[in-house]
């Protein structure tokens, strides 16, 4: 464990990158996923087909391939996707092209799963709820804002939380592609301190378990708060 304790600042910074990757990608992927879900449940057939196609394609593609695309391929087609224009420094954290490529890969990948989570939430609202709302004369906006969406949001919380937990774990792939987040740092440690591998592994694993527990705790709190009597 000495390797971890002596370099605790490095470990913290590594988990800092993990958390930043998670937060930025979570915001973007929830926004994109909501948009996709709107397309998939909306009335325009072309957009429904596009949404279905995107989700099917992305869900069956390994995340590593998407990372490879943003590391090697995308920049060759579109100059902006080299992300060389990103150069932000906050305290000890540097957000560069590697970080941006990771955020792009993680967000586009997770958006497909967020979309499915939200769609499941919408589907979980019984048809009779909307019919009853229309029957008492609520207009479309009323049906949506008063009856359907509140229930859909609530039903979406657990599957979205699962998706976000998966996202947190997936940030580890960025460690292979140039972002020194937790797994990248762990790999460095296991190289440098060969005799402490079990301790190093356990320390980083506990870090992940803690983060996962925080997400699932928050989701349980939200779920409980939004529960109808």
């Amino acid at each position, binding site marked *: 464990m000495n390797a971890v304790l002596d370099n605790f600042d490095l470990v913290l910074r590594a988990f800092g990158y993990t958390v930043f990757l998670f937060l930025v990608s979570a915001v973007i992927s929830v926004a994109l996923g909501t948009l996709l879900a709107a397309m998939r449940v909306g009335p*325009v057939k072309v957009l429904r087909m596009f949404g279905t196609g995107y989700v099917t394609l992305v869900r069956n593609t*390994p995340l590593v391939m998407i990372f490879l695309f943003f590391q090697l391929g995308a920049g060759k087609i579109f100059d902006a996707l080299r992300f060389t224009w990103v150069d932000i420094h906050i305290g000890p954290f540097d957000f560069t092209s590697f970080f941006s490529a990771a955020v792009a890969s993680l967000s586009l990948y997770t958006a497909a799963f967020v979309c499915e989570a939200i769609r499941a939430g919408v589907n979980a609202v019984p*048809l009779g709820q909307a019919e009853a709302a229309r029957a008492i004369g609520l207009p479309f906006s009323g049906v949506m804002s008063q009856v359907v969406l509140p229930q859909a949001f609530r039903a979406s919380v657990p599957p979205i939380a699962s998706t976000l937990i998966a996202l947190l774990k997936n940030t580890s*792939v960025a460690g292979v592609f140039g972002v020194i987040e937790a797994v990248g740092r762990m790999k460095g440690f296991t190289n440098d301190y060969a005799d402490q591998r079990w301790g190093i592994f356990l320390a980083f694993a506990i870090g992940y*378990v803690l983060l996962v527990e925080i997400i699932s705790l928050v989701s349980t709190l939200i779920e409980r708060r939004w529960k109808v009597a």
Partner: protein
Amino acid sequence: MSAGVLFDAPGPATVARHRAYSVVAALALVAGVAFVLWRLQATGQLEYDKWEPFLTPRYIEAILVDGLLVTLQMAFSAVIGAVVFGVLFGVGKLSDHRWVRWPCWLVVEFFRAVPVIMLMIFCFYAVFGGMDELSRRTYWSVVLALTLYNGAVLAEVFRAGINAVPRGQAEAAYAIGMRKTQVMTIVLLPQAVKIMIPAIISQMVVALKDTSLGYAVAGLGLTRIAKPIYQQFGNHVPTIIVITAIYVVINLLLTLLATWIQRRFVGEKKVLDVPMVGQAQSDTRSTTL
């Protein structure tokens, strides 16, 4: 989609409006696709030279044998291992003895919460560190890591599957004097397996995709086979497109198989619902449809 939760059955004016939206959306999509194609053309990604390797028998063979076959082997070994792991720990979590239930719960929760890539790195350096041959070492680290992760997920599937068997079945078995072991092996497991097969095949898709995480430990299989090809020909974009297409096709075939089995052997019942990491097993509610 005539009437749903979100929309009432549309009238003539709404139908016309939706048609207008469709035209606009279709135009926007076509424009987007055209723009991407134009960029591909402008940057020379569509040149024949860059695609030639995928028409050359030697490279096709390399992709299929060193790539696809190895990937399938890894995924298959991992799923077999995961089923064994899953049965052991899934049944363990249902045990009546607290000293069996708790360790099983801990192991399952731990391996579900830790990133697979981390397990792979750990297996590569610590568990199989002594192995001489690099490719075998990578192979077994990938397989072991995927076994542990997917096994932990399958343990939950098994638990949910066994719980999905009607309670009367176990009660009846106890009533005719069967022992606990007999109830589990003769009555509950055979019935649960039928419900679980589609979920196991779906997990195979996850395992197949995750074999690519072996990239972290000098990987093997489809993702890795891309590297020598694009290094030799400088055709990054075509290589990524081709390899991704192979993954997608294989996974879609597996998904089709799972759906077919679900329909043929399980009926139209919905797929097993498995709680997320850290969620107490009592508040498992069916939210996914």
